[in-house]
């Protein structure tokens, strides 16, 4: 171990162990590069110490987030699966303090400021993630105020959030914008006939069909806002495109002009860099 590396590792000890477990190697290399490239930088060490102390002080407040993002993925999947298996959204309750816990029951309206920063957990092949509140709350690019401060929690076996990630369990939607997600089930009504028999009338969900607008070329917040406002479920997919500018819609499936069920899922490809 050379002297630069030793210095780098010594500075790193200011950070808590759990942080070092995930960041140590990459951070040491960064520090070495920085020290070699710019040997005299008086503020650098102090900057590291201050940030390390901040990480330590924030640790208890945000431990549930840390669990989500910094643990090894298999562990998180395991916990998440156990969480969903037990009470649908047990993950947050087992993984540390949240903003006032999760006081939500089905279809109850909760104020925006009572919702944790991370709304939902999705599990996919080799992937665990969550939906940040900010995006879900304002998919159309408007400020959070336009929400009227209200989001409705939704339970479903295969839920697609406005953000577009699929996961089992619980999710939240903006009120009034996404009837597709409000877990409508066709209702059966039994009535007696004059002859003593029984008729069953099925009341369908309020959704009908609609013609999908063409959103190709729009910026993502506008497009997602427009689609989710119509009630279709929006699934976002990364597309590496050189011709379409970053963050714009490359294609949709089905295409614009197609007739879709109002609760149908529409996949939109968004241009991202390689």
């Amino acid at each position: 171990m050379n002297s630069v590396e030793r210095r780098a590792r010594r500075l790193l000890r200011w950070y808590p162990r759990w942080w070092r477990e995930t960041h140590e190697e990459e951070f040491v290399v960064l520090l070495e590069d920085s020290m070699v490239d710019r040997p005299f930088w008086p503020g650098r060490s102090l900057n590291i110490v201050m940030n390390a102390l901040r990480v330590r002080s924030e640790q208890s407040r945000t431990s549930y987030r840390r669990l989500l993002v910094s643990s090894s993925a298999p562990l998180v999947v395991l916990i998440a699966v156990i969480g969903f298996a037990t009470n649908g959204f047990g993950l947050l309750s087992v993984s540390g303090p949240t903003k006032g816990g999760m006081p939500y029951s089905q279809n109850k309206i909760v104020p925006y400021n009572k919702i944790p920063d991370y709304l939902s957990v999705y599990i996919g092949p080799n992937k665990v993630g969550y939906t940040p509140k900010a995006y879900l709350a304002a998919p159309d690019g408007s400020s959070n105020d336009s929400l009227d401060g209200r989001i409705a929690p939704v339970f479903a076996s295969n839920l697609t959030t406005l953000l577009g990630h699929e996961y089992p369990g619980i999710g939240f939607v903006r009120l009034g914008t996404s009837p597709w997600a409000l877990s409508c089930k066709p209702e059966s009504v039994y009535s007696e006939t004059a002859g003593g028999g029984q008729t069953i009338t099925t009341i369908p969900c309020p959704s009908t069909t609609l013609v999908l607008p063409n959103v190709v070329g729009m910026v993502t917040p506008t497009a997602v806002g427009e689609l989710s406002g119509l009630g279709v479920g929006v699934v976002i997919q990364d597309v590496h495109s050189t011709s379409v500018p970053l963050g714009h819609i490359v294609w949709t499936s089905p295409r614009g002009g197609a007739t879709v069920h109002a609760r149908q899922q529409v996949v939109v490809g968004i241009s991202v860099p390689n």
Partner: protein
Amino acid sequence: MTGELSALGRYTGPATLVLSSLADGPKHGYALTKDIEHFAGVHLAPGTLYAALDRLVDHGLIEGLEAVGRRRPYKITAVGATALMAHLQAQRRVTETGLGRLSGEWGTP
């Protein structure tokens, strides 16, 4: 809106620089530092850089890729690209308004 980026509080500045740097492809820590120095003239100290990276990962705006050697590249996500675009568009309105009014009141700089 400034949306998620402004929700990062004191890290909004570094986060905007990091996202802008990642917008043309994944980069690891030091490559980010050098790139940001190059296009913005800002020297991001290592502690600040990692604080910003942590928060961006937390918010789902970037993701860490498989380490290459000892260096881990980070990649912007679709959500990150969206948030960056919204943030930069809001900033552009401020810039254009400010420059426009300056040229009216104070003459063309």
